Structures are given as structure tokens and as C-alpha cells.
């Protein structure tokens, strides 16, 4: 028999927020991976560029290769550093995304050029360099491109808010006794009382304690009492957490008021007119007024016709047939 253990928060808004924060963190970690993967490639790239500019290589064949178009390793390093800085900055979401995307696009272009050139041209043979230099450039650049692709996925998550939270694979107990279901349920409840940013951490911690109690052959009653105390003290724990854990980030994903659209369409159009009436009410009032005016005009017309008929000595039309 196996048992599933806590799989994380369940509240949709909290899941979305924590997943978005996680996406930001993942994008930052991809930035670090990118910098690491390019460290070796930059050295090899610098060696290739240096070799291609060496006086010994000053010949028409080498010049024809156009190796000067290879990305400058110093500049590449600078852009990567700039990307990491932008990733670590706290801006508004749109500004952050725009800045990161700009740097990522530039790095991607440089890496693609490096991969293409080193694939098409036999750089090692032409420049009399060890093949490992070219391999290092290609490996590093491809790893960098993969990191950028993964980073883009995380950026997309941050931008659209459409988050796919992979449900953590439940830890299956292969050894030891199983905690009672009631204690597990209470632990889950205690976890739900905590802010989303720390929920996963405490759920795992609570569950590990519960498993240890079960391993110590403590009965279901003792486990329940432990879980009950956890649940009772969840509010106290919540208050004890640093304020950052219970608040949204300052630059964060706070719902922003969207200004009314210029064309007045959509749900953000101004709902009130200049005279303080809502559009719908005004339309209804205008229709009613138009009906009244039409009725009045018809009545006036009929009255005038009657008066004319009397002047002519004719019996009014409506009574003529009766």
C-alpha cells in the first residue's frame, strides 16, 4: 500500500501567484545557467577571434571567411551580465519583461551566429586551432540557446499569467508506517492556513514530522494530537512569519486598474455620461421621450385636422362613416 503526501497549495489564486513568482525565480536561474554555459565558450571564442586577427593569418583566404563577424566574447559577456542584472531587478512586470527580452534577443542572435559560422566553416582547420576550441564554442552556444528558450517559456508564464503548475509527484512511502489519514488531513488543513509563499515548505516540514511520529510507532491518536496542535498554531505561525511572506511583492503582481480605453469600447468604457446617467438608462429615457414626442405630434396633427375640417364645414373624418 502506498500513500500520497501533500502535493502543495490548492487555492487557485495562490497557486497562480506562487507559480508566477516561481517562474520569475526559474527565469533568474536560467540566466545564471546561461552565464555559466557561456563562460567556457567565451574563452574559446576569444581565442578564435584572436587567432583570426593574428598577423600570421593575414591572408586572403582567412579574410574571405569573414570571421570578424563572430561575436565579440567581451561584448557577449557584457550583454549576459546585463541580462542577469535585469533579471535580478525589481521593476513593474512589463518593464522587467521588456528589458529581459531585449537582452535575451541580442544574446540569442549572437549565439546563433556563432553556431552557424562554426558549423559552416572549418575554423579549426583554417586557423590551425585545436578542434576542442570550436567544440567549446558550439557546446556553450547551444547550451546558451537552450537556456534562453527555457527562459522564454518562464517569461511567457510571467507575461500571460497562464501557469501550468506541475503537481509535485507524491512521495511514496517505501519504508516505515503510514501516518493516519486524519492526521494527514489536519496537516493539509494547517498548510492551507498559511500564506502561499511558504505553504509548500511548511507542508513538507509538517509531513516529515508526521512520518517520523508514525515511524516511532505512535498511534493515530498521538498523530492526530500532533496535527491538531499544528493546525491550532497555524495562525500563530502565520503571524510569526516575516511580513514579506504574507505580503505580495512590492513590484509584484498586484491587480492594476486598467485605464478606460480611448474608443470607449469594452468593459472599461466610461459607464456614466456627463449628466450622471448610465448609458442604458439614458437610452431608455431617450426612447421614452421620443415615443412621447411622437404621440404628442400625432395628437396635434389629428387636432389640427379636426379644426380644418370644422372650418371647411366637413364632419371630422373619423366620424364620417358612423
Amino acid at each position, binding site marked *: 500500500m502506498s500513500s500520497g*503526501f501533500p502535493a502543495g497549495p490548492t487555492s487557485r489564486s495562490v497557486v497562480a501567484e506562487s507559480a508566477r513568482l516561481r517562474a520569475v525565480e526559474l527565469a533568474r536561474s536560467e540566466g545564471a545557467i546561461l552565464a555559466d554555459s557561456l563562460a567556457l565558450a567565451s574563452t574559446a571564442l576569444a581565442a578564435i577571434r584572436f587567432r583570426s586577427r593574428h598577423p600570421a593569418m593575414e591572408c586572403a583566404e582567412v579574410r574571405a571567411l569573414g570571421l570578424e563577424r563572430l561575436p565579440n566574447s567581451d561584448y557577449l559577456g557584457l550583454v549576459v551580465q546585463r541580462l542577469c542584472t535585469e533579471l535580478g531587478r525589481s521593476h513593474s512586470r512589463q518593464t522587467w519583461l521588456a528589458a529581459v527580452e531585449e537582452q535575451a534577443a541580442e544574446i540569442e542572435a549572437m549565439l546563433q551566429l556563432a553556431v552557424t559560422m562554426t558549423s559552416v566553416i572549418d575554423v579549426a582547420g583554417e586557423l590551425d586551432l585545436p578542434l576542442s576550441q570550436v567544440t567549446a564554442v558550439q557546446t556553450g552556444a547551444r547550451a546558451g540557446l537552450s537556456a534562453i528558450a527555457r527562459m522564454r517559456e518562464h517569461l511567457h508564464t510571467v507575461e500571460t499569467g497562464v501557469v501550468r503548475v506541475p503537481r509535485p*509527484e507524491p*512521495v*511514496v*512511502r*517505501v*519504508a*516505515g508506517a503510514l501516518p493516519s489519514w486524519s492526521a494527514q488531513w489536519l496537516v493539509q488543513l494547517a498548510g492551507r492556513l498559511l500564506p502561499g509563499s511558504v505553504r509548500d*515548505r*511548511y507542508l*513538507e*516540514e509538517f*509531513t*516529515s*514530522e508526521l*512520518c*517520523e*511520529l508514525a*515511524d516511532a510507532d505512535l498511534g493515530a491518536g498521538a498523530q492526530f*494530537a*500532533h*496535527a*491538531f*496542535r*499544528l493546525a*491550532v*498554531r497555524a495562525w*500563530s*505561525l502565520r*503571524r*510569526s*512569519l*516575516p511580513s514579506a511572506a504574507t505580503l505580495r511583492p512590492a513590484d509584484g503582481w498586484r491587480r492594476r486598474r486598467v485605464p478606460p480605453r480611448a474608443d470607449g469600447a469594452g468593459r472599461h468604457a466610461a459607464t456614466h455620461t456627463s449628466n450622471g446617467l448610465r448609458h442604458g438608462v439614458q437610452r431608455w429615457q431617450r426612447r421614452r421621450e421620443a415615443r412621447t414626442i411622437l404621440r404628442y405630434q400625432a395628437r396635434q396633427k389629428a387636432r389640427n385636422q379636426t379644426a380644418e375640417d370644422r372650418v371647411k364645414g366637413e364632419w371630422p373624418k373619423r366620424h364620417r362613416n358612423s
Partner: protein
Amino acid sequence: MEHVRGPKMTAATDSVLRLLLLDPAREMYGLELVRAAGLATGTIHPILARLEACGWLESRWEDLDPHAAGRPRRRYYRLSPDGVVGAARAVDRRASVAARPQRLPGGVVAEGST
């Protein structure tokens, strides 16, 4: 970040700090601390959270693959360098306050409880 004020010192916090001060380099997990300090299980987390928020405690996850081990990871706590100094002062202050004679109604002077 420098914290001017320490955490709220309750008897439970005091006993946890005393325990951690016995060997500041030693890492202990929640249930271990509870058992050693003689507290009721499930009561330690608010204390640890307060101490961690003050910067007195450092915590880390156990180096363990939960799927391979078949159990969730433990969270290990230990005193930070600032925490060692702060905790020692706080424990001393609390001990001195407890040892101070108290004047009871009727002019009777009671000895300290420690």
C-alpha cells in the same frame, strides 16, 4: 539586516534558545528540538519562524531525495552568528529577571523562581 529588537521571549522560546546554545554549530530539526526542549509536539514552528525572521536562526533542507528515501525532507535549524550573540544575551537577561526578588502584596519579598 540588523534587527534592533529580538523576538518575543517566552518560556518556550527561552528553552529552545538554551538548547540551541548548547552547541550552536549543531543543526536540529523541528521534532528533535521539541523532544529535547520538552515542549508539546506541533508547537515549535511559530517560535522557529520568529527566530528565523529576526535573523537568529538559519535553516536548510536536508540533503535527501525524498523519492529515494521514501519520506519527506527535514528542515534543519541552527543559530546564526548574530543569533548566538543575541540568544545568549536574551537568555541571560531573562535569567536575571527571573532571579530578581519580587515584592508580593503585604510587603513579602519572594525569591527568584530560578
